[in-house]
């Protein structure tokens, strides 16, 4: 994961609540066994009028010009602004991969769904929760003047508005540390292997039934 420090970028205002991960990346694109190739199909059902399939490139599709991501004014957006409960629904991490590959580095919303929020940090996408009033103000600013940039400073935990006002945001200290340093979560946990082994040994004593799998279930089904 690449280290994350500051992002100075354009904001695209997606004025909808409860944006679910089925919208962020529809199911037909989940058949891929890779982590890449999702950016062209971000918000596929909203960005395009025709149905998307794996392998069809955006230039052979019919664009939905009503959708904000297709507005020529927001083509350099790195920051997505949305309403409450962003990322609800399916646990698909493909939603985060699609946003990143499209070029989004930060999502700002009044609230996020839990699994999506957690998935963001594993990939270097920064989800920022701000108060409703600030969100409303940001929508008005971004809808009025697309050319404005926000400065998101993760080490300082601030979002700086065009009028130089600085809005603080909170973030879990460990998550911040991992993002800023681009750390490998699994490596961090494996550094505590002794701890896991000690737990497991004690746990086996108290809950032995969890460690004794019936013999026949160790095998594959009769038709295999």
């Amino acid at each position, binding site marked *: 994961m690449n280290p994350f420090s500051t992002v100075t970028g354009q904001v695209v205002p997606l004025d909808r609540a*409860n944006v*679910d991960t089925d919208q962020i990346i529809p199911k037909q694109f989940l*058949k891929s066994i890779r982590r890449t190739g999702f950016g062209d199909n971000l918000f596929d059902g909203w960005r395009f009028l025709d149905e998307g399939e794996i392998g069809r490139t955006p230039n052979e599709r019919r664009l939905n010009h009503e959708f904000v991501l297709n507005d020529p004014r927001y083509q350099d957006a790195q920051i997505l602004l949305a309403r409450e409960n962003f990322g609800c629904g399916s646990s698909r991490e493909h939603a985060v991969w699609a946003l990143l590959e499209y070029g989004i580095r930060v999502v700002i919303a009044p609230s996020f769904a839990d699994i999506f929020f957690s998935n963001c940090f594993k990939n270097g996408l920064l989800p920022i929760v701000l108060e409703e009033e600030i969100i409303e103000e940001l929508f008005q600013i971004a809808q009025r003047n697309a050319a404005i940039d926000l400065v998101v400073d993760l080490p300082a935990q601030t979002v700086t508005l065009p009028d130089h006002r600085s809005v603080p945001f909170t973030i879990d200290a460990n998550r911040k540390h991992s993002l800023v340093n681009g750390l*490998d979560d699994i490596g961090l946990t*494996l550094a505590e292997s002794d701890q*896991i082994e000690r737990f497991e040994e*004690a746990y086996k004593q108290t809950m032995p039934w969890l460690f004794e799998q019936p013999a026949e*279930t160790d095998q594959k089904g009769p*038709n295999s």
Partner: protein
Amino acid sequence: MQARLIHCAAAFLPGIPMSSSTLYDKVWDAHVVGQRADGQTMIYIDRHLLHEVTSPQAFEGLKLAGRQPWRIAANLATPDHNVPTDNRAAGIDGITDLIAREQVVTLDNNCREYGITQFDILDPRQGIVHVIGPEQGATLPGMTIVCGDSHTSTHGAFAALAQGIGTSDVEHVLATQCLVQSKAGNFSVEVDGHLPDGLSAKDLVLAIIGRIGTAGATGHTIEYRGSAIRALTMEGRMTLCNMSIEAGARAGMVAVDDTTLEYLRDRPFAPVGENWQAAEQYWRTLVSDDAATFDQELRIDAGSLVPQITWGTSPEMVIGVDAATPDPAAAPDAQAADGIQRALDYMGLGASQPIQGVGLDRIFIGSCTNSRIEDLRAAAAIVKGHKVAGNIKQALVVPGSGLVKAQAEREGLADIFLAAGFEWRSAGCSMCLAMNPDRLQPEERCASTSNRNFEGRQGHGGRTHLVGPAMAAAAAVAGHFVDVREVA
């Protein structure tokens, strides 16, 4: 980084009284491996369920880093999202979509390489991962269970702490047998009274989501409690816990009682002999203490409920069968009005339109929410002796597992569905998310026993109405929505 860990293994020993703990507190505490300085906790994972869609990138990551799975026996895999529901005798060759086929083959290869137990596409035990876990007794009380699928909350019906995770966490759990997260809040949903005849756990959970909204329980684990919950079968409890995620809760749980234990006894993965006795003694403690307190509470009188139907594009957009769609003009603010209008437009419905009488194109009975034997029995009881209405283009029944399918055939349910004009398919996620060939065409309207009515969920431009199995069956016969209480 200096993640400071405090060893907590001694804190959970069964028998040590914690007189004001919730069920969630107890299961959480029993799995704490260590506490990090900033409040994040490493919890041990007992059961990891895998399917073809969210695991390939995790296995790839594991290989690239040269890591091995921590505990092979904790894992159980099956393909479900992509598998076709017909022509199953052909096995993998029956998957005509080559990209989908590669994904199923990749799961096969990964399971073979690491020695992970898999019920593959030809195994009679194959099915939707959230159906086969409980069916096999691989889901047990007090377990922590994860799967790269948000409907993992289903397994909470067994007093397990079961959560959906993303692919990075699938890799993390494979490699470390742990999940790092912050503890959620406790949310009590207490349901008393009797569910009226004709209603099921599906109507109950839709009503709960309608009450608190799709973000109502975000950051919380729901415990469903009260006499109406105790009265539910395990399958009803699974339906209820399954849709906890649709209320924003990553996990939903129900305490252990005799119903739980009776369901599990003699299941293939369940403990036997002395192990069962020791387990049962512990499992009996998996209830919230009388003095337990909750961060949020909701009370519902089951007796006041009517059959539920979603009208819009979010599960919270739900009404009783005797009601009409909302009027955007009556919304509290412009943003809410806009959301209602957009949903009505997508669904092809008008404001204040009575939901009964809305005509349908397809019927889907299946999904991890409603594809178990009791669901099929409830639907068959309505269908028996009737025909699917002429305007219905397709009525599908997709059992949740190969074993559910076989049982339904033994009970004569398959014959009832077939005689009525339903298609009788093989197990998989099918039209719940339309990754396989079962899907809606644009603007087609479906009465579906699944869990999400998001735009395009069941097919590009498709219109989904979530209902319980009996309501879906009644709608199939009538060709439009009807009140199942007047049909049954």
